[in-house]
């Protein structure tokens, strides 16, 4: 009797001749082995970047953010660009684990764990920028509404910046809960295999005493499904609210109704690109090519070409509306500050156009979608392009104010702004290296769950099922 059935035509999600124990072995072994030399090198570089970032931020706090090159006109520069960029990257994880769960996309099982981890780290990185942009960071708790002795003076619930506080902190919390509740069974697997005292202790604590009881699994499934249902609108809401930071202000180039869907598509676009960048390295280093197959990479590339095209469509719509609205300020922002390649920041607009709109179109070709090295290269290009997008939106709308007297000619970052950005890279990769070493990078239990339908060695057994009569098939399945 087959409990599950999947068409043979579908590409297997797990390659090779696997059984349940082999899956555990393949995914958990790297946790139990000593880290490789490559891991130490990568980890050291990340920590070095992190330390440089910490020093930059230390200077920001000590001397004030006057050490950044922000000026009266360009009040948001690299910091907010980086904030939006990181938040955008943080969208892929929950999209993969939540939306693709609701859409019953089997391939998500191979990539969701690492993508969710990436989401959490990216959101942590994103959060740093608005917090330190406040200047007096020791008063950062003022952003939360709490009864205080100053009136009480409350926060402004009408402000999109406050909506952002709620959106980002909710997103972080829910993603963390989703991720960790999914991790519990796998941490229990590590715990039960552990040989050393230390590993037994730490994974014993982390796994919360998970036993694998059927009742617990039943609740776990219910929890995952509802969390997915909650996270799906949440993912869409977070970048929508980030886009409100811009769209609700009356600045040419920002004040557009297209921003929410356009930002969400862009976020998914950049998030998937970052997932590709990380997973292509992870699958190679940890030898997980049989779990993160070319099929997975191709599926993600399809998402990239789709969202990239949506973003491209949004860019063109913006240009059209700038003309069609006959608003001279809007037209100035779009046709002079952005699309004119000879204007001071024209290069960034065309860089963005090339990286985000033109280059992903190569993924219409199957050969290129399944080419790992090329995908890695493209994922980096896409992330550069998405950074440019946020930079274009923020800086080119700001640097020419309404009054020519307050035009700033050229805003370029100081070393400490760059240092802060590099520091978040350090933070992100330090976290990711630790995750890849000490946590199961692939959801072990979920892979086991799809093995008998989507494992390569189980595919041929589906022959029997396909030859069955309908009644027998129905009978077998009605248990």
């Amino acid at each position, binding site marked *: 009797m087959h*409990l599950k059935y999947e068409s043979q035509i579908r590409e297997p999600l797990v390659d090779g001749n696997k059984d349940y124990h082999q899956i555990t072995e393949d995914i958990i072994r790297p946790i139990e082995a000593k880290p490789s030399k490559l891991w130490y090198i990568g980890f050291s570089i990340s920590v070095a970047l992190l330390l440089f970032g910490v020093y930059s931020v230390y200077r920001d706090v000590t001397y004030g953010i006057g050490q950044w090159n922000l000026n009266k006109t360009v009040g948001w520069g690299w910091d907010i660009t980086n904030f939006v960029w990181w938040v955008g990257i943080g969208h892929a994880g929950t999209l993969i684990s939540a939306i693709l769960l609701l859409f019953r996309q089997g391939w998500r099982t191979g990539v969701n764990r690492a993508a969710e981890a990436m989401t959490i780290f990216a959101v942590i990185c994103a959060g740093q920028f608005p917090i330190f942009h406040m200047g007096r960071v020791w008063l950062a708790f003022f952003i939360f509404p709490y009864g205080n002795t100053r009136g009480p003076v*409350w926060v402004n619930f009408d402000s999109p910046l406050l909506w952002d506080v709620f959106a980002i902190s909710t997103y972080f919390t829910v993603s963390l809960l989703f991720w960790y509740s999914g991790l*519990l069974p796998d941490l229990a697997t590590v715990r*039960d295999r552990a040989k050393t005292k230390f590993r*037994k202790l730490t*994974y014993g*604590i982390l796994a919360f005493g998970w036993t694998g009881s059927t009742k617990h*699994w039943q609740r776990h499934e219910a929890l995952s499904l509802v969390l997915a249902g909650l996270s799906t609108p949440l993912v869409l809401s977070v970048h929508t609210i980030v886009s409100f930071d811009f769209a609700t202000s009356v600045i040419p180039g920002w004040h557009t109704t297209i921003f929410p869907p356009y930002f969400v598509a862009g976020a998914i676009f950049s998030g998937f690109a970052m997932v590709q960048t990380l997973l292509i390295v992870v699958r190679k280093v940890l030898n997980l090519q049989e779990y993160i197959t070319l099929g997975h990479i191709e599926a993600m590339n399809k998402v990239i070409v789709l969202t990239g095209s949506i973003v491209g469509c949004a860019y063109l719509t913006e240009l059209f509306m700038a003309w069609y609205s006959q608003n001279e300020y809007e037209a100035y922002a779009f046709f002079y500050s952005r699309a004119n390649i000879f204007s001071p920041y024209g290069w960034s607009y065309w860089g963005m156009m090339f990286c985000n709109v033109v280059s992903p179109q190569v993924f219409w070709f199957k050969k290129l979608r399944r080419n790992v090295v090329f995908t890695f290269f493209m994922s980096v290009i896409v992330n550069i392009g998405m950074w440019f997008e946020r930079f274009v939106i923020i800086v080119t709308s700001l640097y020419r104010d309404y009054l020519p007297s307050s035009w700033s000619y050229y805003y370029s970052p100081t070393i400490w702004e760059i240092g802060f950005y590099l520091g978040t890279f350090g933070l992100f990769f330090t976290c990711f290296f630790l995750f890849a070493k000490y946590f199961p990078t692939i959801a072990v239990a979920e892979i*086991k769950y799809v093995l008998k339908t989507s494992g390569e060695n189980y595919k041929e057994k589906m022959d029997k099922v396909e030859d069955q009569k309908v009644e027998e098939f129905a009978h077998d399945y009605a248990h």
Partner: protein
Amino acid sequence: MALKRYVVGCFDDEEVLFPAVKKVRNAGYKIQDVYTPFPVHGLDHALGMRETSLHTAGFIYGILGTTTALAGMGWVFTKDWPMNIGGKPNFPLPAFIPIVFELTVLFAAVGMVMTFCYLCQLAPFVRKHHFHPRATDDLFVMAIECTDRTNVEDLKGFLQSAGAKEVSYQVAESGWWFGRYDVEPKLYREENPVIG
């Protein structure tokens, strides 16, 4: 917490497990639980478990979040400290929607996860009896509680005939206790009480 006696059968294939569950239940034995390395769909029904109400709890938490957000913001802006912000009304519902939505999701998610942990008794430093270390790897472990009338040897044989690869008899704590996984637990009662 009480010491109970179990007969444990380990299966290595869920396709053998399902008929075995049916057989064991039909024979009148009470299955305490089946421990599996991954969620096996339909097993809860096969064991006669009722559907979980965690969804309902999530809905209630969500409603709680919605009302908290609306009531909180409404009170602050209309009663406690009304402010004129760009001439907007003091209770601008459209401007409240983002925060209302976020708090709904936040309350529902946090509440559900806490309820889940409470129902399953999951927390750091919680220790439970594990019938087989490979239950989280590749074995489906069925634990059957023994009563006074259970013939252990018969039951073992019965499980083997139903397809169990490994059978054992264990005396174990039924609940949970605070403990660490690097220290082996000691049973606080004699394992084999002397029957006079």
